[in-house]
């Protein structure tokens, strides 16, 4: 039970990072972006490539930072991958969503996002193959934290959780202390009023994709570090990320963080009573329950 709790928090932190970008883009551009989770895949694979590159350039960088399996080269790769994934999110918007937005309705955007998701997933499969990949071939032993109740934690998991919380804390500082953060929240709440208040919406859209893409890349790398990377990573995480967004309330960044943890915990705690095969159904059930009981989510407000 306690193991499920710990695992749930860890998965939750990854889902939160993914859900923050989704909730911002979804609220501002008024469409359900089913390709958002593919940004996690792009981030994970981009980091894999950069990691290999740095390791080859300077072998010392490929040394693991004990007790983690994480290497210096992967840490650098993570940062580059966040930037690259943010830029690819901007590129996808320019190439696809912006054009559809100009001519089509919300539904066209949703279908376009399905198309984008499939294209990204299949390109990754073509380039990197369908077999799962790992950042490190080293076997990292889990640390037995306690024997009764039995609790195993890998150092990488602790790092991932701390790093994810740190990223969220930095985002919180930006949102609550800087006028740039106020602008982001203003645009998420009321784009028209934000424009009237002198905020350049097109520039904000670019920034939101950059931030959303960057956070998704971090989530993808953290997922790869604690699990494995495969082209279906996005497909597997799209529903839990959507569930996190809906639970938190679309447009609420803090709601997305809480939603991520709630969905992560619920999916893992469900394993206590349900056979593991049913675990992927839990996010669906959460989405249904929230839509019935609290359609605007925990922190969401009615659309104005």
């Amino acid at each position, binding site marked *: 039970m306690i193991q499920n709790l710990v695992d749930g928090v860890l998965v939750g932190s990854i889902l939160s990072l993914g859900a923050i970008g989704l909730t911002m883009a979804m609220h501002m551009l008024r469409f359900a972006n089913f390709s958002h989770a593919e940004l996690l895949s792009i981030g994970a694979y981009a980091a894999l490539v950069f990691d290999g590159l740095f390791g080859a350039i300077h072998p010392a960088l490929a040394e693991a930072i004990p007790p983690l399996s994480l290497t210096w080269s992967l840490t650098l790769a993570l940062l580059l991958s966040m930037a690259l994934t943010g830029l690819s999110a901007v590129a996808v918007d320019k190439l696809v969503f912006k054009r559809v937005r100009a001519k089509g309705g919300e539904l066209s955007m949703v279908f376009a996002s399905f198309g984008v998701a499939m294209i990204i997933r299949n390109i990754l499969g073509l380039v990197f193959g369908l077999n799962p990949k790992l950042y490190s071939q080293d076997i990292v032993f889990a640390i037995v934290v306690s024997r009764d109740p039995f609790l195993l934690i890998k150092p990488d998991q602790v790092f991932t959780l701390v790093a994810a919380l740190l990223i969220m804390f930095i985002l919180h500082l930006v949102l609550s202390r800087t006028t740039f953060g106020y602008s982001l929240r203003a645009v998420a709440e009321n784009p*028209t*009023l934000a424009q009237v208040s002198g905020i350049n919406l097109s520039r904000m859209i670019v920034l939101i994709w950059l931030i959303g893409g960057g956070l998704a890349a971090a989530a993808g790398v953290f997922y790869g570090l604690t699990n494995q990377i495969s082209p279906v990573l996005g497909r597997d995480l799209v529903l839990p990320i959507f569930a996190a967004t809906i639970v938190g309330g679309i447009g609420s960044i803090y709601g997305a963080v809480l939603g991520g943890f709630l969905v992560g915990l619920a999916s893992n705690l469900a394993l206590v009573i349900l056979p593991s095969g049913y675990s992927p159904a839990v996010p669906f059930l959460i989405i249904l329950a929230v839509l019935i009981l609290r359609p605007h989510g925990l922190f969401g407000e009615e659309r*104005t």
Partner: protein
Amino acid sequence: MTALVASNIVAGYVPDLPILKGVSVTAETAKVTVIIGPNGAGKSTLIKAIAGLVPVSGGTVHLNGAEITNPRPDRMGALGVAYVPQSDNIFRSLTIRQNLDLVLRNAGKEAAARREALFTRFPALADKQTEKAGALSGGQRQFLAVAMALAIDPKVILMDEPSAGLSPKAAQEVLEYAKSLTEQGVTILLVEQNVKQALRMADHCYILADGRNQVDGAAQDLLNDPVVGQIYLGGKRVTHA
């Protein structure tokens, strides 16, 4: 002196379906100009068209002699024009102070001083500056919206029904405050449903109906005009048995 001139404006949300069919309005410098008319007359659309929120397909808007037709809404502040929407005119999830800091974000080192000056002007807001703006009463929200408009030091303020949804007392306060701004040289162009109250404080009035100009004149004259009173101000009506 005229501050803002909108001539023969044709505008609407959907192409080929104009709501405004050639409306002309002039706002004199440091005066209150009010636009009234029945529901669906196009009053709010006119204000939004001037502010760049509804595309203008015909006619022109001039500000102090320079054409600004179809401006980018986020550039209006830089031109010296503030727009206060009718509803949802504050960011509810931000605190009062954050709302002001947001509009003052380009003021650099002056921002803090200007924020404090606004708080001196609106002491009720100063007392609640760390509270979420969504928690404010209707009247206080309207004052926050006005304070946000004033933050950019505008020459012209466009107001869309500032008294909507307010108690008569709060409505009176907001309108009187708007009127007092003209003493500092600010030009006010406002849309009102609250016709009598608006006419009492306005200098000039335009009456629109069905997207066209109907009558215009000095506000006091219109207030005393029996025909206008009968048609637009809820005077005696001809009733059919």
